[in-house]
């Protein structure tokens, strides 16, 4: 290295020769272009931009020049280093881009493998249908009432105008709690909840009573001794059968589809008068398909029973029938599930096979 030039005399310094500088830049650019990896580029950077690189060395020689020459030489070297720096930055970006692309390819996973480590569970579809039905009525301003499954005979039968001689009270349908004459049964419907509600609060009453009920049927494809029902009860001033039909129509439209309506047919139940059977328009064929499997080609599907609450029932529950009237209805949840979701065999609903619930997930 030359020492500082104090004489201000022009001195020939070989390293600062324009041709040499140009050559150094050309060598650097070629080496940078040739670098095919980030590691190679790092080596090229060291060789052409590092402290020992020709341009760095040339830069040091500038100090030896007379002041008059310094500016020009400094400009030349600075421009040369700038060109090398640009080439390095560009190549660096290029190589990093390639590397990033490659990593993404290498990280490819086969996500078609469906194997959750912790599979989600499921609700039972009876619970889901039940909650859905509850929500429909809650949205109409009703409330959900519940009661015990082991129930007193009076609340299950007598209060509902089912006298001791009514056929449904015999052993043919009812589970009696021991000892004989205990006055307790497994409730045969959720109607005792209606009575409890009327005993416990003043009208207006708008309640839905869903729950588990029991009858001594053997399990087969369409029957089960333990099943679920929802009953509705409205007691208010001026309640009519038209209100009953309005509530049922609204319900079937929410559960089975817009435009579906119900049909009432006269029937007999001890707890209602007048009483009716509820049919619902077939939401599958709309009555258009004589071979429809859902409605059997009739266009109508039997859903349950309903009617105006018998005044004897109101009296037994302490409601004044001169001031209030009411309606009640009862439908099966299993039947709703079977119809809405095409469940063909009751066994699947009651046997607790996880495969059955898993089909439905958490919402239906």
């Amino acid at each position, binding site marked *: 290295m030359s020492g500082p030039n104090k004489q201000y005399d022009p001195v020939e310094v070989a390293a600062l020769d324009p041709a040499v500088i140009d050559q150094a830049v050309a060598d650097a650019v070629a080496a940078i272009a040739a670098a095919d990896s980030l590691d190679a580029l790092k080596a090229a950077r060291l060789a052409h931009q590092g402290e020992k690189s020709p341009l760095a060395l040339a830069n040091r020689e500038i100090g030896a020049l007379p002041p008059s020459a310094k500016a020009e030489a400094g400009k030349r070297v600075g421009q040369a280093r700038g060109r090398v720096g640009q080439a390095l930055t560009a190549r660096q970006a290029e190589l990093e881009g390639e590397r990033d692309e490659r990593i993404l390819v290498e990280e490819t996973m086969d996500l078609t493998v469906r194997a959750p480590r912790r599979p989600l*569970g499921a609700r039972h579809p009876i619970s889901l249908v039940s909650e859905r039905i509850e929500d429909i009525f809650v949205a109409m301003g009703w409330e959900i009432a*519940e009661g015990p499954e082991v129930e007193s005979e009076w609340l299950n039968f*007598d209060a509902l105008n089912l006298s001791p001689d009514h056929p449904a009270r015999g052993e043919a349908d009812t*589970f009696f709690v021991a000892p*004989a004459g*205990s006055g307790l049964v497994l409730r045969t419907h959720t109607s005792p909840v209606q009575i409890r509600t009327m005993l416990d609060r003043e009208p207006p009453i708008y309640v839905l009573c869903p729950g588990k009920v029991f009858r001594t049927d053997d399990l087969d494809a369409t029957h089960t001794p333990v099943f679920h029902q929802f009953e509705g009860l409205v007691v*208010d001033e001026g309640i009519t*059968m038209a209100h009953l039909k309005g509530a049922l129509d609204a319900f079937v439209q929410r559960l089975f589809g817009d435009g579906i309506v119900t049909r009432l047919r006269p029937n007999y139940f001890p707890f209602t008068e*007048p009483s009716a059977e509820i049919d619902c328009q077939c939401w599958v064929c709309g009555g258009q398909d004589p071979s429809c499997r859902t409605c059997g080609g009739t266009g109508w599907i039997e859903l349950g029973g309903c009617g105006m609450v018998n005044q004897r029932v109101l009296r037994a529950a302490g409601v004044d029938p001169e001031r209030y009237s009411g309606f009640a209805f009862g439908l099966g949840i299993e039947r709703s599930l079977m119809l809405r979701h095409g469940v063909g065999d009751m066994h699947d609903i009651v046997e607790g096979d996880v495969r059955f619930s898993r089909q439905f997930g958490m919402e239906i």
Partner: protein
Amino acid sequence: MHAPVSWLRELADVPADATGADIAAALVRVGLEEEGLSGGDIKGPIVVGRVLTVEPEPQKNGKTINWCTVDVGEHGQRVTEGKAQEIVCGAHNFGPGDLVVCVLPGGVLPGGFEISARKTYGHVSNGMICSARELGLGDDHDGIIVLSTLLGAEAAAALTPGDDAIELLGLADEVVEVNVTPDRGYCFSLRGIAREYALSTGGVFRDPAHLDVAAANDDGYAVNVTDGSPIDGVPGCDRYVARIVRGVDTTAATPQWMSKRLTQLGMRPISLAVDVTNYVMMLLGQPLHAFDLSTLSGGVGTRRARPGEKLTTLDDVARALDPQDLLIVDGDDRPLAIAGVMGGESSEVTAATTDVLIEAAHFDPISVARSSRRHKLTTEASKRFERGVDPAVAAAAAQLAVDLLVTHGGGTADPGVTDVDQRSSRGPITFDTTLPTRYVGLDYPQDEVVGTLRAIGCDVTDEGVAEGGVVVAVLPPTWRPDLTDGPDLVEEVARVRGYDQIPSVLPTPRAGHGLTHGQRVRRVVANTLAQQGLVEVLTYPFVAPGLFDALGYAPQDVRRRAESLVNPLSDELPLLRTSVLDTLLEALRRNVARGQRDVAVYELGLVTIGRDEPSKAPVPGIEVKPDDETLARIRAAVPDQPRHVAMAAAGDVERGGPWGPGRKVDASDAVAWALSLGTALGLDLVVTATERAPWHPGRVAGITLQDGTVVGYAGELHPKVTSALDLPARTVAAELDVDVLVAATGVPLQATELSTYPPAHTDVALVVAEDVPAAHVEAALRSGAGDRLESVQLFDIYRGEQVGDGHKSLAYRLTFRAAERTLTTDEVSALRDAAVAAATERTGAVQR
């Protein structure tokens, strides 16, 4: 109830072109339910045949078929081939000489079943010999129809092979079958069905009870109606008509038209006397009984049975009578029949009978219903009496039976006519004619209301009611005992206009409360478990008595106190569950048995805690609200039924896969599930070390509220339990009382303000004896560390030489944070030392 269309035409104006379906639709419109429609789709040749030869041919499949030749008159093979009809028949209840019913090729049986000559069992069978069911005549499929049995020997003797059996058996006639609801007893008769049809169509009804009835006199047979113990004050019998026909040939053939109608109704003609009583019952709805007069000793009567009395009924069963059974007795007080249910053998009309006593009586529905149920004996008579028979029709029914016996049995009617009529008079219903409009929500003008009530047979007047008002006095017809109050009459008005006319009006309650807190909590519980991989199931709550032993319950365990059923579905499962696990474990087992290796299930449901001192629930009867004290006793007698949630799992809780092996479910998963319910409800549950059946004594945790209230238990099942219940080894389970969770929540939780200053972490390793539960150590650390402790996390448990036998080292990360500033290192050290000191004091922990 079956109603042949041809019979209906005699009683009501039915348009000539009306089909069975039209008639059914008219009946449905006024509230009868259509059960079926038969006939009308049958086509000949269906003829009477006389069996000539029967050759039994055993088949390879073990059956024996009969290769028969049958004389079918001038039909079939006689015409085409000049020989008798050759038919293969599978039945064996006939032989050569019998008259049978043959459908020949070209004929069509009910259901559109077309018959052709076909090859079967190595022969060409030219038609079929028919059973009653194949012809749509009821359900009898035990064998083919032998006409001498079906119609009686005499009627059969009049038949010739080749006679048209369609006409003979009324097969072409359509029969409408309707379901009769319990309030419409009168529809158990052609008279009732025709009345409803006329009501529906507005046409004419011809009452078959309008006939010349001999007036009652004092010369009739002695009848002594008594009732020493009426049920609820209602006498067992309030009308008894007795008529006598002497010199009847009870072996005379039942007329063909009568046999045909009985056959159409699904009844088998038996003998003239029986057929006449059945025919009258089917027409008028009045059950009749025919006694052999010679077996009676001067008079009949009614009374309740005496303890120990017995009667052999017509079905040849010797029955022990109950003091509540109403009996028909003879002059010597000897039981003859259970009133309204079934007659006795001793007074049965037989072929030797010449003098017949006809009984047409009206019995208390309740009394008949109880006897019928008590003796498990449902008859055509009891069915009608239970639902209400028109008490006014008795005399006409007896008259018609007498007339028919005289005409067809050659007898002479006694001039004496007994009619003991003790009916209490029925008061009218005071009826506001605006009630239908107010009750149904459809406008029914007063003249329509009154018109409808008159059309159904009511007597409507304004006698005894305020003049000029809308209130009328309505006396229902005798055949409608079900009409007792205003709403009953509203139903009549509504059904005659048609329920299809009722508008649809959505009732609009005031704003509701939505779901209750408890209902919302249950949804959270159910969804929280499902989201963690458990599948909800719903099981029957019935359990076996041996289950509590299998679960290892101690003798005094309260969970052994199960309620039981008088009439369980299965004698093996008479008890009601006291825990949800009682029945959930069986669901788990079934899933495993069906090939599910990894199963996690849960159920939310009620359990029944048996009553300590069972009290009888009073049953005070209908229509009246019991007094408060009785209601309280009713409620108190109902056992407690808390709502529990139980979980059970076996196999892998984390699945193996491309990422590595799976992880077996263990006791800590059950505890974690239980605690997750607390987390989901914002409730800080406490885990305690405990012992509890049916869990492994070393792998069960008690779950409590902060105040120590027990919520439930979680852990691994005892190996003896898994083995006794055939469950996979290491099955885990938990059961919690949801009602406790509900009660512990619901008060709005008050938020803690968040500090934005940095946390300070510090780790401590504490050596404790092996039997010290980690929860105790954690609780001690928390109490010692004070309010600035944000969290305690157990991140490692070490056992080994460095801590010594019988000890373990628990490594905790303590996180501190202050609300108002950054804690200094010295402060954190001091807090940590305080925490450790508390742990040392309470659990003997030594810092490593």
